[in-house]
């Protein structure tokens, strides 16, 4: 660029060009259809073929749903009512609704208890899921919920959950007093305090088994979709802390600790959940102290928790690895020790990154709770395959039942994964 030329085109704009509307193209809807459905011969064929397939599907599914029979006492009456309309036999769902949801052994006059616990579940998780909307104080509800839910679902005296709560509260108080001195002191002090309270409270609870007691319901009487929900919620909650510890262990530079965690994680991730359920069903009892009486649901909870914790550990490890090395160095250079650096600096950030992954694990785990039907527990799928399809009343109603089960799971899992995506977008725009 020569100077002379630059001078000859010297120019200063002194007016502003006003905003103008874009040139008018074809009308909106027509343009949309053309660009989105019929742009080119290949896309046109695709569109037509897809429309035809959708039509085929709907021509079967719509009459099935619209002409469905919702009131009948057994399959024969139902088929008669439906006649040639092609309607589905949804009466099985209304007829066996309570069995599908609560299983066939939970006392029917007590259904309000799990229902109430289910409703409360939303109140308990809302402050966790939408931490920006709800004030932090509501987290107290979340902390109280496990004890309330246990009391409602299993029944028995209120003293047991109260003592459990008191123990944890005592442990927390001692921990928060001592943690400033050192994490280890706080941690072990807290455990000692909690165990002490549980031990003392155990006597009280044993003395007064009828104090404010609800009818006790045994674990083996749980069933239906309720069982899926119980297993899902309990196992995910328990596996979180375990998974975080495993992830920290795997990131450790102590070879022995690291080795133990790697072997555990890789072992669990290498075998199918079914084999672990077999362990819960037929093997685990051999490894527990003679005379101890863990019921099946508890053994299943143990194994599913171990299973989920290995997957959560891998997710959290990804979160830890995503943090810059500078964060560790800054914590070190300020003189924070390992426990402080992890608790105050590293984990809050790593967990935040890991939330979408953890939610995915939770969804997967919730779906996997249906596997307990294989070891003859009567969850939703177990109820359908067992008592309901085997009964003479409803033998042969496959589509409606499996469709219903699929729908229930879809609603829950799709909801959770949509939440996870929303959260991911939130985090992406968050101040980092």
């Amino acid at each position, binding site marked *: 660029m020569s100077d002379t030329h630059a001078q000859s085109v010297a120019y200063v704009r002194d007016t502003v060009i006003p905003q103008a509307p874009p040139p008018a193209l074809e009308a909106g809807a027509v343009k949309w259809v053309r*660009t*989105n*459905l019929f*742009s080119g011969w290949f*896309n046109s064929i*695709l*569109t037509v073929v*897809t*429309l035809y397939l*959708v039509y085929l599907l709907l021509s079967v599914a719509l009459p099935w749903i619209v002409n469905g029979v919702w009131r009948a006492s057994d399959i024969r009456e139902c088929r008669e009512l439906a006649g040639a309309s092609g309607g589905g036999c949804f009466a099985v769902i209304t007829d066996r609704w309570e069995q599908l949801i609560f299983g066939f052994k939970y006392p029917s006059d007590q259904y309000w208890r799990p229902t109430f616990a289910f409703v409360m579940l939303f109140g308990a998780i809302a402050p966790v899921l939408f931490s920006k909307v709800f004030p932090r104080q509501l987290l107290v509800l979340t902390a109280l919920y496990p004890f309330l839910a246990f009391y409602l679902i299993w029944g028995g005296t209120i003293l047991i959950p109260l003592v459990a709560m008191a123990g944890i509260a005592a442990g927390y108080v001692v921990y928060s007093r001592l943690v400033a001195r050192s994490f280890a002191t706080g941690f072990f002090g807290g455990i000692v305090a909690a165990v002490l309270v549980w031990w003392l409270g155990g006597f009280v609870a044993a003395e007064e088994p009828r104090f404010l007691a609800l009818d006790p319901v045994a674990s083996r009487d749980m069933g239906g979709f309720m069982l899926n929900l119980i297993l899902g919620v309990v196992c995910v909650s328990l596996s979180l802390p375990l998974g975080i510890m495993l992830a920290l262990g795997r990131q450790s*530079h*102590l*070879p*022995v*600790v690291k080795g*133990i965690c790697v072997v555990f994680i*890789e*072992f669990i*991730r*290498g*075998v*199918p*959940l*079914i*084999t672990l359920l*077999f*362990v819960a069903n*037929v*093997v685990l*009892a*051999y*490894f*527990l*102290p*003679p005379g101890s009486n863990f019921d099946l649901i508890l053994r299943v909870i143990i194994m599913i928790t171990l299973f989920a914790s290995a997957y959560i550990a891998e997710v959290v490890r990804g979160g830890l690895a995503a943090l810059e090395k500078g964060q560790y160095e800054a914590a070190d250079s300020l003189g924070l020790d390992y426990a402080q650096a992890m608790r105050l600096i590293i984990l809050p950030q790593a967990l935040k990154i890991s939330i979408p992954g953890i939610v995915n694990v939770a*969804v997967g785990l919730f*779906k*996997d709770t*249906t*596997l307990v*039907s*294989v070891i003859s527990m009567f969850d939703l*799928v177990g109820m359908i*395959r067992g008592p309901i399809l085997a009964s003479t009343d409803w033998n*042969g109603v*496959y*589509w409606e039942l*499996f*469709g219903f*089960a*699929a729908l229930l*799971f*879809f609603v829950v*899992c*799709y909801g959770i*994964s949509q939440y996870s995506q929303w959260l991911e977008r939130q985090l992406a725009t968050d101040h980092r």
Partner: protein
Amino acid sequence: MSALTDPQQGGFRPSMLLSDTRYRSYTFQFIALICLIGVIAFLLGNLFDNLAAQGLNISYDFLGAPSGYDINQRPIPYDSQSTHFRASIVGILNTLIIAVLACITATVIGVIAGVLRLSSNWLVRKIMSVYVEAFRNVPVLIWILIIFSIMTVSLPAPSAFRGDDPDTTMLFNAFALTNRGIYTPIPVMGAGGWIVVATFFASLIGIFALRRYAVRILYDQGRIIPTFWPSVAIFFLPTLLMFFILGRPITLEYPELSGFNFQGGLQIRGSLIALWFALAIYTGAFIAENVRAGIQAISTGQSEAAGALGLRPNRIMNLIILPQALRIIIPPLVSQYLNITKNSSLAIAVGYMDITGTLGGITLNQTGRAIESVLLLMLFYLIISLSISTVMNFYNNSVKLRER
């Protein structure tokens, strides 16, 4: 650990076990080891106590005893007089069959669905996301059971094919869809049949060589020679030629109705099909997501840069996008293959006799050898998982981008 030269520190004090970085890590590891040993000792102690109390022992002798049960899908000769060990081998083979079939089908479905999710066609895009969401959010066990009930409840019995005016007929006179499974023609190798197969594989190698040659020509002489139609020709012509020259050595055996059932041909059981398709469609939804994410992750900047260099769209895809996208897609793809293998253990829910159904099912129940059977079962899956992840690690290391 490094040794800091630190002369005035002097001798060893017990407090240094915790306060000195040289000993601290050993102390913690020692504690961890003690805890581990304690837990293992506790569990094993309980195990021996419990076994002794019930008069049991740990023994693998049962593997050599006759199994006494039948398996309906036998890749190798097996009958009820064979040993439990052989039953387990049959189970392993059945697991591998279902895993391979489902992996291939899931990949095909997943890649197509993943690409279609990025289609410019709005309808196709929406349909594909409905597919992905519907299948990802419902337990695979429910899908298996749904497809299994299609196979066993909705399809006609073989007797429906009988008579002069049957209720249903075979498709193309070759396929019979019945509630006992699907009957298809099976190829029968005559003399020279294997030569035709060998010719086919040789042509595949030929296509590969042609493509290498084309690249070599491009590099050396700067000429692009056509490869597409020659490849198609190599794919079909030599094999067909050989087939007819040798006098059609490969023939098909068709299933035929005799009595109440079909004879001949290949019977694919409903349980296999249920498991196969359910695993393929379910996992296909996950693979579709991986494929979509992999392609989207290659930034538009890459295709713009390639376009700015003057590359045409199909070359941009082949030379720039695909190599990078594959790098992203393959690791999750392999972990989906692992998931298929592990999920194939759900076979037990529909009575397909895989390793979980034989060793972990009937053998376990008949012999009562719970600990041994479950241990062997886990070992099998563990070996498969670990070998696949070892291969994966090699792959990951070999394609890792060279970066500072």
